[in-house]
């Protein structure tokens, strides 16, 4: 994917899907934008939040 295509897609996600303005998209911190896009996908249940499992979750206490 070219740089132009990547940023056109991100612009679409931000303005159409997330309803933010063009100015907000271009002046937003890149990491913050990626965070908001991840929140959007998680809210719509397209993705699930990263959950780090602990050993206690894998091996029950009863064992």
């Amino acid at each position, binding site marked *: 994917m070219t*740089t132009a295509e990547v940023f056109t897609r991100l612009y679409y996600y931000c303005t159409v899907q997330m309803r933010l303005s063009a100015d907000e998209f271009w002046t937003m911190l*890149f990491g913050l934008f990626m965070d908001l896009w991840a929140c959007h996908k998680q809210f719509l249940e397209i993705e699930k939040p990263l959950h780090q499992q602990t050993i206690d979750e894998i091996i029950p206490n009863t064992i």
Partner: protein
Amino acid sequence: MIIENERSSFINIGGEQYELILTTKATKAIASRYDELENLGERLMKAENFEMALDEIVWLLTLMANQSILIYNLKHKDAPKELLTEEEVELLTSPLELVSYKKAITEAMFKGTARNVVSAEEEASKNTQDA
């Protein structure tokens, strides 16, 4: 405008403090110049001569310092500030401070791309790419 100060770095250019911000606009400009963001570090480190490294640093400093001015101008349309030019930055910076400029650029990029929200799918894809 959504900006968090802990995700930027500050630098002194010609006696004035500027905030370096890695916005989406700056990320696009960097990605276009270096083909991919991963190539940036390599290009800076492997810059064959000092002059080339300095040119890249001046370009990055101008780009990221101008982001904070652009944000300011959007909020203060009645009294906008002038954007920095590469020529001005080159004149106002000293090659002796190259290390501190590199540090500020790295810090701004590191903080600007830092993530607080990650999806399980993203992490799995990242792990596949790393493997």
